[in-house]
């Protein structure tokens, strides 16, 4: 079933938390809500879950209008950053809890729980209590608990933020794989762009209660629509129209019509090339990151970041030339 949201609107005592949200989640799609803290992504997730009311707009799942349905009757699965396992129940009881609420009989419940524990690769820990598990294990149990009731939509609220870096990377892969195998439509909230890029079919990038751009990870990175997206997803060098007119006049040809400050030019650091034999830009700073080096230059009064692979041998303070290849860079809405 497809989740669709039209013109959703939400205020908190006068403050607009969500403004004209339009989005869809396809039947087997993994969608990430990405944005900085305070952008409204968690509010949106809680509204979808039915834990919060909204002020205007429409929300439906398949042909069911969700406005009419309380959180408890929606049949969604929800996983929190803080795991939120019942501390007084064992792993088995936690996973089987939703089934118990729905009065599924004991035998069937047992079988389902067993299957799920296998799915999350913790079949031996059935009788442990949450505090006896590591963070990653707890989060897996929380996911199994949400999946046990065969939810028609799985909602993940920053599920990986509380885990340490290595476990987080593992879990990214595991969650994605599980979701694909079960084919459950999933919405995940995250502020980590790398997480969104690696896991999602579709990313919804949000800022200040509005959707900035919707697209596949590739689209968002390669074709950002706004200055915010260009900057938030990955790193971009952003040049004003005036600066481009002065220093990169060739690029002006592709600029859409619009007022002077309604568009900026964005280009990724890895797209820029440095020519050490010419000059024009001064190297201010060099960072060695292992697989690449990040060089900050002053180019016509503007800070420019360039990322190069290999081990470039430039010196801080020396002068080099920056080359902008013809097909690189994009005009984005300011």
């Amino acid at each position, binding site marked *: 079933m497809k989740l669709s949201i039209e013109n959703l609107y939400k205020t908190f005592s006068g403050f607009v938390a969500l403004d004209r949200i339009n989005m869809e989640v396809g039947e087997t799609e993994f969608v990430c809500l990405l944005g900085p803290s305070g952008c409204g992504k968690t509010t949106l997730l809680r509204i979808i*879950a*039915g*834990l919060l009311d909204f002020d205007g707009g429409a929300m439906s799942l398949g042909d069911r209008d969700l406005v009419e349905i*309380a*959180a*408890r*009757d*929606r*049949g*969604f*699965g*929800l996983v*929190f*950053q*803080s*795991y*939120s*396992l*019942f*501390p*007084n129940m064992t792993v088995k009881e936690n996973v089987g*809890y*939703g089934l118990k*609420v*729905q009065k599924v009989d004991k035998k069937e419940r047992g079988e389902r729980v067993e299957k799920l524990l296998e799915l999350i690769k913790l079949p031996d820990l059935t009788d442990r*209590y*949450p*505090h*006896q598990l590591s*963070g990653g294990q*707890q989060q897996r149990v929380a996911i199994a*608990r*949400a999946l046990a*009731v065969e939810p028609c939509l799985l909602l993940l609220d920053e599920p990986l933020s*509380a885990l340490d870096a290595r476990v987080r990377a593992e879990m990214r892969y595991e969650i994605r794989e599980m979701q694909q195998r079960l084919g459950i439509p999933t919405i995940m909230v995250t502020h980590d762009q790398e997480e969104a890029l690696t896991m999602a079919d579709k990313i919804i990038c949000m800022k200040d209660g509005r959707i900035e751009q919707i697209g596949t990870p590739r689209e968002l990175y390669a074709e950002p629509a706004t200055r915010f997206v260009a900057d938030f997803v990955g790193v971009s060098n952003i040049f004003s129209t005036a600066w481009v007119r002065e220093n990169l006049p060739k690029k002006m040809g592709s600029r859409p019509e619009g007022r002077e400050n309604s568009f900026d030019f964005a280009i990724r650091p890895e797209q820029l090339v440095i020519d050490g034999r010419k000059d024009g830009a001064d190297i201010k700073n060099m960072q060695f990151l292992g697989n690449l080096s990040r060089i900050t230059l002053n180019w016509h009064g503007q800070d420019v970041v360039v990322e190069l692979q290999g081990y470039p041998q430039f010196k801080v303070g020396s002068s080099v030339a920056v080359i902008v290849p013809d097909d690189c860079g994009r005009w984005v809405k300011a």
Partner: protein
Amino acid sequence: MSSATAQATLKKSRLLGDTLLVTSSVVFPLIGLCIFFCYPLFLVAGKSLQLADGTYGIANYINVLTSPGIVKAVGNSMILSVSTTAFCLVLGFAVAFALQRSGIGGKRYLRGALSLPLLAPSLVQALGLLFLLGRNGLVHKWTGWDIEIYGFWGLLIANILYALPQAILIIEAALRQSDARYYEAAEILGASKWRQFLDITLPNAKFGILSAGFVVFTVTITDFGNAAVIGGNFKVLATEIYSQVVGQMNFGMGAVIGILLLLPTLIAVYIERVASQKQFGGSSESAIPVSTGFYAKRDVPLGIFVHTIGSIAVIVVITVIMASFIKLWPYRMTFTLANYNITLSGGYAPLWTSLLVSVEAAVLGVIFLFFLAFSMKRISPKLAKIVYLLAVLPVGVPGLVLGISYVLAFNVSDNMLGVLYGSSFLIALCNFYHYHSQGFLTMVTGVRAVPPSLEETVSCFGGGNFRILRDAVLPFMGPTIISVFFFIFMRSMVTLSAVIFLISSKVSVAAVSVMRLDEAGFTSQAAAFSTCIMITVILAMGLMNSLIHLYSKSGSRKEEIKNNQDGSQKRGFARMIDRNYCWTST
């Protein structure tokens, strides 16, 4: 189609069940508050304006403010309360600092010693002082010195002993808030220990000290027990109001003094609220507790000082207990149980009444307050605000004023409420509403400690409020419920100020018996009766601690997991403070 309709009806009935649960858990406690708190207080306000001839005016106020006796009592009360507050702050800070930050020995003992006064009726301190320093006291017998213990000085010492534990608890909570990193930073910057104390410790405890000051002031100005026993000719407001109402049946005057007593208390409570918010708002979630090293130069004198204070508190209470077993204190020091053969004012009946009353108040309190706290999040925020305000209002009303208000509201023959007057149940109600705020706040903190995501998880699986209550809330609430129950029970066992107005020739309570026995000159029997009360309360306290211990042992995993979950450390911490808070204002 039929299954769809069936499902719809099921949904509807579930929703109805949910609403019904929330509605009734708000409505019943609210009705209670209206009838047994708001209504009586309105009567006091009304009565204070009603003149002898039935008309209304401010003549009562003028009368009170011009009658020399009462003006004197106001002055006395002020002097007494201010001095008690000053002493309690200095001593309280010393003890709190010693307990929280120093390396002195015997902390557990000290803590126990200084919480003794909370476990006994307020007049026990006065009683103990009489046995030690009075005309028939040990010191007089041994040295022949004639100490005038009745009056200001006796009352001052008794009040200090009585109010000190509460000051200590509050200041301790404030000192506990600090973060070791402040001190490490100061140390690295080269600040001496004394500088650190002046620049970090004191400023951080500022609001704790302030709120302790107001609590002590309030407790002292409205305390009745010590003033009745050791006040002698030193008349204070509390005794004055009692003699106006009970002695001279002058309800108008009593009401006026009641309203006047309300003012300092309300101001104090208000400032204390503001202060405590500021104090606790400033602490970070991941604070590292300050270590308690031993520095001989500081800790040896400090230890001697605070242990002296602790010993005085213990000696006073032990004296009362010993005197209860002595034939004729201090002249014929032979062991006897005769004092426990209490014949005056109903023998031991008031003790059983007290037990009954306390259990009733505690059961009622736990049920009402738990459901009220549980529903706070489930009603509209506006309504919740009003409910909250109403629920914490009783903390600003001294027991004496509440007592008078109950007399005015229930000592009537022309309406239904009059039926309650003279019954033990009314005393239970009075005690419950007297300690309503502290119990409520503790419950609210307890409910807040339940991770909201846990409740939401239940919701998403299709569980209603009943299930949320059982699976998400209750597992976290055990210790809170236990502490609220015993808090109300124990306070109810020892309180005197409100119930003194509600007793009749048939129904009386334990604390009043002690006072009556003392008034009648049977001081040894009064000591015996006090001992019985203390034993009951100490047993209750032991029961409480072992129940909480048992609970946390069987659920040790609960505590642990909570610590793993985000932000819960602060919740647990805040809860601890509030559990203390429970004890910090009478």
